[in-house]
Structures are given as C-alpha cells and as structure tokens.
C-alpha cells in the first residue's frame, strides 16, 4: 500500500458533499483575503471562519492536529528569528539580543494568518480528492496546463514512490544500512540519480503510449458536476462572511 494518502478527502460531511467548484472559489478568495490582510481583526475573523468550516467537515482531529503541528514547526523558526530582527520598540533584552514589540506583533499576525489559511484549505480543499480537484479546476476554466500539471504531478508521485521503494528494498536486501560515511552518501546519490533516470524513461514510455492512443496535446474531461441548492447556500453565506473580513481589514478597528 502506498504511503501517500489523502486522509481528509474521505468523508460524508456537508463540507465533503459541497460542489468542489464552489469550494475552490471560496477557498481561493479566502486565502487571498487573509494573506493580504494586515490587521488582527480581519485575520482573527478569518481564523474563526476557517474553524467553522473545519467543524463542518468533521475530520479526524488528531490528523488535523498533526498537520497543523507540521506547519507550525516552520512558524516556530519565525518566532526565533523575527522578533529579534524586526526594527521597533524594545520590550525584552538578553545580552546583545533585543525583541521588539512590532516584531512580536508581526510574528503573531503571521502565525494567525498561516493557521487560518491552512485550516481553511484543509476544510475546503483537502476534502476534495486531488483528482476531482484537477477536474473541477478544468471546469472552472483555469488554464489547461495548470490542471494537467496538477493531475500528472499527483499521478507520478505514486510512480516515483513505487520506484523509490523498489530501489530502497533492493538496497536493503543486500545489507545496506545508512551510516555516516562516504559509502552511504554515494549510495544515496546513486539512488537519487537512478530515480531520476528511471522516472524520465517512464515518462517517455507513457508519452509514447499516449501517442499510440491518438493524443494530440489536448485532454478531454468526462466528469460532470451537479451544482445543487446547498452549493448556492454555501456561496450565499461565504461571500458575505468574506465581505465581513474585508470590512474589518478596511476599517481596521485597533485592538492594540
């Protein structure tokens, strides 16, 4: 069984049953809005919205927490660096290091934003299987190349993964154990190179097979989507909610 899984795409909650096209549009607007906002009020409202959607999706919370932890481990480094390097009014000193008020506020804002966007995307986008995502992007008339890039990348992740495991197994059964030495580095370099060469060859063969089936640079999608009343309701509720976020950003009620 493959290690690449889409744990959030399976489910039968309201968030899963909504038309993926509506979810993509709302998620895209949401992400842009929150990413561009500079106020705590708008970002906090965004986070609240994202959490609400997450609640609707009824996902296994342990897995969601694990994913958030992964994202926040990157943000942890920002907390180490940003407050100390951002110019502004000093609030805390330790030897030559000075943390600034502006730096702390800025890092806090970034943390809030990232989490709001990730949670929003988990609730709206991760609940769509990648394949359906590609097809709905196609239906939204997004550039064809973009959709195919997404679908092919996803498709070939599995191929890479299989090739990778095959090669790793071949190494293991001949007694390879990673150590800190030149032999290990060289073997890993061979592994990477072999993976590249093999994948390239495979891509070539797949292209040949496509040519044999009359491929001439265009893909056709068979999938049809049914836009239902609940999708109108979702859109009708999300857009005003996003407008509230926009309003908060515009008027910027000062919290601090």
């Amino acid at each position, binding site marked *: 069984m493959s290690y690449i899984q889409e744990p959030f795409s399976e489910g039968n909650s309201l968030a899963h049953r909504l038309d993926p096209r509506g979810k993509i549009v709302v998620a895209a607007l949401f992400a842009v809005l929150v990413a561009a906002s500079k106020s705590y009020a708008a970002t906090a409202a965004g986070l609240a919205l994202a959490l609400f959607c997450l609640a609707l999706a009824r996902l296994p919370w342990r897995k969601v927490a694990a994913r958030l932890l992964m994202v926040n481990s990157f943000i942890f480094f920002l907390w180490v660096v940003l407050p100390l390097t951002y110019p502004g009014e000093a609030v805390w000193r330790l030897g030559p290091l000075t943390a600034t008020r502006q730096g702390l506020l800025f890092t806090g804002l970034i943390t809030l934003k990232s989490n709001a966007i990730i949670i929003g995307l988990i609730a709206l986008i991760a609940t769509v299987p990648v394949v359906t995502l590609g097809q709905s992007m196609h239906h939204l008339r997004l550039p064809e190349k973009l959709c195919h890039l997404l679908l092919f990348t996803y*498709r070939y992740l599995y191929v890479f993964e299989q090739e990778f495991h095959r090669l790793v197994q071949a190494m293991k059964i001949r007694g390879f154990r990673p150590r800190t030495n030149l032999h290990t580095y060289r073997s890993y370099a061979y592994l990477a190179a072999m993976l590249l060469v093999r994948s390239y060859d495979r891509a070539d063969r797949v292209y040949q097979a496509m040519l044999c089936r009359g491929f001439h640079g265009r893909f056709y999608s068979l999938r049809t989507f049914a836009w239902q009343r609940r999708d109108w309701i979702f859109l009708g509720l999300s857009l005003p909610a996003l407008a509230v976020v926009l309003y908060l950003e515009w008027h910027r009620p000062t919290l601090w």
Partner: protein
Amino acid sequence: MSEPLIELRNITFTYPGAPQPVFRDFNFQLPPGEHLGLMGPNGCGKTTLLHLIMGLLRPQAGSIYIFGQEVKREKDFIEVRRKVGLLFQHADDQLFCPTVLEDVAFGPLNQGKTPAEAMAIARKTMARLGLTGFDDRVTYKLSGGEKKLVSLATVLAMEPQLLLLDEPTAGLDEKTKDRLIHILQHLEIAYMIVSHEHVFLNHTVKECCHVHGHCCQPVET
C-alpha cells in the same frame, strides 16, 4: 493475393549509440486476418519491430507500408495509430488517467468522439472484458492483472483493425492468462503477439516466427 496489413521493406535500424544495428535489410509481411506470434531471445528486436510499426521509432533506411500505404512522417503515423492498437509491455506505462473509465475513454475522445459517445464505448469495451463496475477505480491502485486487462480495454476502445501485443502475459497469474486467451480467441481482428510463452501462443496464434536481424523465420509449433 490480397495486400498485406503490414509490410516492412529493407529496414535498417540502429539505436542511437548502439554498436550493432537491430535490423539490417529487414523484411517482414503480415497478411490480413493473420494471428501471428513473434518469438526470439531478449534484445532481438521484437519490441523494436512493434515500435517501428507505430512510428515511435524511425528506421534509418527502408520503407514501411501499413494497410497498403507508405508511412514516413509523423502525420502518416497519426493515421496508423487510429487503426493499429499497441498494448505496451508494462501496463503502468499505458495507464495514466486517474480513473479507469477516463483512461479507457481517452482514445475515443482523441478520435473526436463526444464525451457521451466515448463513455458509452468505454463502458461497452469494459463490459466485453469483464471489467464492469471498474469505472471509478483508480488506475494506479489496481492489481497487476486488472491493470493489464484495463490497458487492453484502453486499446480496444479505439476499435483498431490490428492489435499488437508486447509480452501481454508477463507477470500474470494463470487465471488472468486464461481470461486473456479467451478474449483474444474471440477478437475478430488481426493481431500480433510478442511472447516467450509457448503455451500461451499455442492457444492464441496460428503461426509463430523468430525475429532475426534480417527477417522473421517461421517456427514449427
């Protein structure tokens, strides 16, 4: 005598960088309605022959006639690929769409069928191969045997007049092999099978030949 489906005249082909040519002055004919088995050791040019016919490889010299027409340029081969189906040795190379139905419908769509027609053809072909209900199965999560049968469906959905099969039994269990034999025995078109398995060929083809550098020599079966 009626025109051969495929005719290769004085073909010379060398892989780039290879010291020896695979074919030198190679001649070959496939009569209409023929079910032919191609045999020979690894590297003797069986797959190369199939790829030359499909225009995936181009010979350095000689000429290829398919359905009586000389084929030279990519444009000619596009026409060939509408009429001749090639089943690749590895099903993983053949299947690339996310779901089975889409993969089977890919060929018919390329032939200019509407999505509804393509889906109908795909479903019909899948039913013929005992793959009913596979529509939304994910291609890369199928078993080896299922992948092979789906690949065959993707080729047959294009309603070819000639089918080329490259080691179709490699890695299949007996049950799937039997299914494949049954399917081939009921095909109404000419086909050519590259295989190392005598038993399989005995059930599916009337004649076998050995591929050599100059020609194909008939083998007694």
